[in-house]
């Protein structure tokens, strides 16, 4: 037994040595760890920048470009955190999130975290305009040209019937992240429709995609800027126009959604420190077209956020320059 064992051990050591020797040709870990470089001089005063990334492509486009510029031009160490909106706001108080780059309204959260807990502050608008409303696939707008006027919706209601809508027309709602007045709207505009809750953005996009491909009728809640609109150009239905205060009483709403000026929110600590990353966030502003371009790189061209950001930044040096803190 012992003889046997020592022979085996000998064989092992031999094998080990052989393997180790043949391996010596390879590069060792830690030989060339210096990646990035360049902006290291500035790194000291920028430090770590915790950026919340909310789960939609438009936001990811914002985050990609801001993170890219912060790393390359300012030498920050950017930590992106994939979080839902509510959780991101909580992160301001616990010090784990420095900035939210694309906020859609959320007056309740503003009240709670900016006015009451005083852990967050506003950092200006992104330059993007958010539109929420009811949309139909483009084939319907072409075929039934008057469908984009809400007054005519009842005329077509029967077309929109589905297994879920209980004999009425279906109004497909429900990315649960957004506030909707749709039940009140249907009631107050006396529409022969029933609100059906799809429950996720994925479900809404898939429904519109299928409706356009199969030329089936669909009326649904949607919003822009959104990457999907560059694939299928949905057409907005005009509800009675929004006037200031027409949505004050949620039960009596009978007008369209307001336009949202999407804005940036940062933690109070981050704003008070006033470092280069904060100045970048505050100065960051671009158009819907800019965002759609980067979103398209990510969603359709399947580029990584870093590559997409690099491509856009390289093509738009002037815009980027305007965001950078004055030297």
């Amino acid at each position, binding site marked *: *037994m012992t003889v*046997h*064992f020592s022979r085996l051990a000998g*064989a092992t050591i031999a*094998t*080990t040595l052989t*393997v*180790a020797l043949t*391996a010596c040709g*390879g590069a*060792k*870990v*830690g*030989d060339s760890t210096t*990646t990035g470089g360049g902006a290291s001089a500035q790194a000291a005063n920028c430090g770590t920048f915790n950026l919340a990334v909310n*789960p939609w*492509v438009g936001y*990811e486009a914002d985050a990609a470009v801001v993170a890219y510029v912060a790393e390359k031009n300012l030498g920050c160490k950017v930590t992106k*955190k*994939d*979080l*839902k909106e*509510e*959780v991101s706001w*909580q*992160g301001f*108080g*616990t010090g*784990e*999130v420095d900035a939210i780059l694309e906020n859609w309204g959320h007056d*309740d959260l503003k009240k709670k975290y900016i006015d009451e*807990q005083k852990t967050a502050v506003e950092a200006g608008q992104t330059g993007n305009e958010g539109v929420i409303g009811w949309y139909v696939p483009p084939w319907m707008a072409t075929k039934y040209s008057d469908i984009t006027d809400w007054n005519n919706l009842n005329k077509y209601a029967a077309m929109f019937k*589905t*297994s*879920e809508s209980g004999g009425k027309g279906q109004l*497909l709602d429900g990315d*649960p*992240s957004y*506030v*909707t*007045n749709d*039940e*009140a709207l249907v009631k107050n505009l006396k529409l022969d429709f029933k609100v*059906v*809750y*799809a*429950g*996720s*953005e*994925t*479900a*809404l996009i*898939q*429904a519109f*995609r*299928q409706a356009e*491909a*199969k030329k089936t009728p669909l009326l649904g809640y949607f919003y822009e800027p959104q990457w999907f609109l560059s694939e299928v150009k949905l057409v907005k239905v005009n509800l009675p126009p929004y006037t200031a205060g027409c949505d004050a009483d949620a039960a009596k709403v009978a007008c369209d959604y307001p336009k949202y000026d999407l804005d940036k929110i940062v933690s109070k600590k981050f704003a008070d420190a006033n470092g280069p990353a904060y100045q970048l966030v505050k100065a960051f502003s671009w158009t819907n077209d800019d965002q759609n371009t980067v979103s398209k790189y*990510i969603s*359709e061209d399947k580029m990584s956020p870093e590559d997409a950001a690099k491509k856009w930044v390289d093509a738009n040096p002037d815009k980027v320059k305007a965001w950078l803190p004055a030297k």
Partner: protein
Amino acid sequence: MITTTTTAAAPRARLRRQLSRPVQAGAVLVVWVALWPLVRGRDTLALSPADLTPLHRWLNDLNDTIGANRNSNPIFLYVINEIRAVVGAFATFVQSLLSQPSFGRPVPVLGWLGVVAVVAYVSWVFANWRVALLAAAGFVFFGLQGLWQESMDTLALTLAAVAISLLLGIPLGIWAGLSDRFNRLVTPVLDFMQTMPTFVYLAPLTLLFLIGPASAVIATLIYAMPPAIRLTAHGIRSVPPTPIEATESLGATRWQTLTGVLLPMSKRTIVLGVNQTIMAALSMVTIAALIDAPGLGKTVVKALQTLDVGTAFNAGLAIVVMAIVLDRVTTAAGARVDQAGRPSRFRLPLKVLLGVLAVVCCYLSYTYVWAAEFPGEGSAGSALARGADAVTTWAQDDLSTATQAVKNAVTLLLVDPLQALLTESPWWLVGAAAIALASLLGSMRAAATTTVCIGLLVGTGLWQDSMTTLAMTIVATLMVMVLGIVFGVWIGRNRHVDRIIRPVLDAGQTMPPFVYLVPFLALFSATRFTAIVAAVVFAAPVAIKIIADGVRGVSPTTVEAATAAGSNTWQMITKVQLPMARQSLTLAANQGLIYVLSMVVVGGLVGAGALGYDVVAGFSQGELYGKGLAAGVAIVLLGIMLDRIARAAAQRSAAKTRPR
């Protein structure tokens, strides 16, 4: 439960009573349906999705208060923060070993070669060389998919959660196994942990434990720990009394009895608990990604933002492969515990030799780049993604007309009538019928539980939504049972079919639902039917596995006797195998139901509305938080109610068939 009677007339009376119970239950249903048109639409307790009750508002305020006092409350300062620090440090340590750049190096301590070597070695030592080979192949596959780092992140968090689950779960399980009182106390808590939708506690969790590995691990272990506790307790309880009495009569202390008899004899069940804990932890991967847990879940979530089914499928497949590897290794380890014979004389030297080899691989992967970072571009991954995309496109374009017709038919004939009966009846009528059915089919105790649950459901303010969800749950569970019986019998009778179908079943249980739900949404639209299908995909595998196990458990002598008596295949199945596997059928129905309920929230994401949507909306919008929490509680209540009725009914029928 069953009163023993001695008079001769009693058995006949009891027989009559037992026979008439299903008839009475039928009568309850008939009365309900007859009353329905008369009272339809009255007292239905409807609440529209945007509306709140005072209870929901109060829960909102409670949540806000906790958040606002986070930094001043001593419980936070001294308890929660300490837990977070310990769990976080442990999780970060495992990550630094496997997945994250650590100790000032650009790569983790162990590279791919080291991990593969260790996994293969450990699998061989605790199980056998066949699963060791499978494990090594599975792990190399992650690299070929281009998902090495993501897979290791997932593995690290899973291992951390499983380790803590077992560290706490096994002692608690032993306690529950030894003490009836503790067992009674802990069972509803475990029910709660398993059926409360994660979305309900995910946001508060990040408030308590902050964003980071600690929250991800804790979210995972809340769901993953119950199987470890339950199965350990079950194992200890199943040890026959004779050996215990024997040791005690020899003067052994309680500790000696535990370590010398109880634990060794329940080892196999405890290993099964470990196995189930791992599976449960892996099913949390995509949810944990919503609070920034790194790994495969993130890849899935990101890909689905752009409806990139191919990429999501690739990552989902890695989760499935990891689940299959870990399942087969733990199962084989459990089986070996059973047949621990005398090891061969070469085993020890071989153990040392291979151990040294594994250490060498670890050293290489620590030192050299080629062994640290998986080489190649992950081309297998992109090929898989393209394949999945092609299949999806084909299904969406060519099948959807037919599938829409199926969806419409099932909805019209099955879902709509049931939902109308449940949601349009007054709540008191539904409640009375449920209590009557519980006492007729189950027991008085079940009826009492049902009464409490009905009362609390009304109290949540979400009665009508609960009934809508209940209707879908019933339809889904029926479908699960049909599939369970058809496939369970098939693979129970045929080992070859089993070998082919079992990985598919594993995939159904561990593939993140949204990966297949995107094509399903195209096939069936955002509807209640899609939600039902999602639940069936997840729940049917469990039912199939349990029924197959039951069919296989029918003794060969019985089967041979039936064959000798000239039974054909159909008679064999319907007259011998299914009736003999009756216990398994009940267990399958019970587990199928619980699994269907755990998909309610996913259903809410694809058009189910009702409780599932309430939970999702509560997670997304601060103002709806309290309503989401109430909806989560309603799901738990439905689960407890249905489970207790089904269990009582099963006990009754088991008692009925018991030979006297």
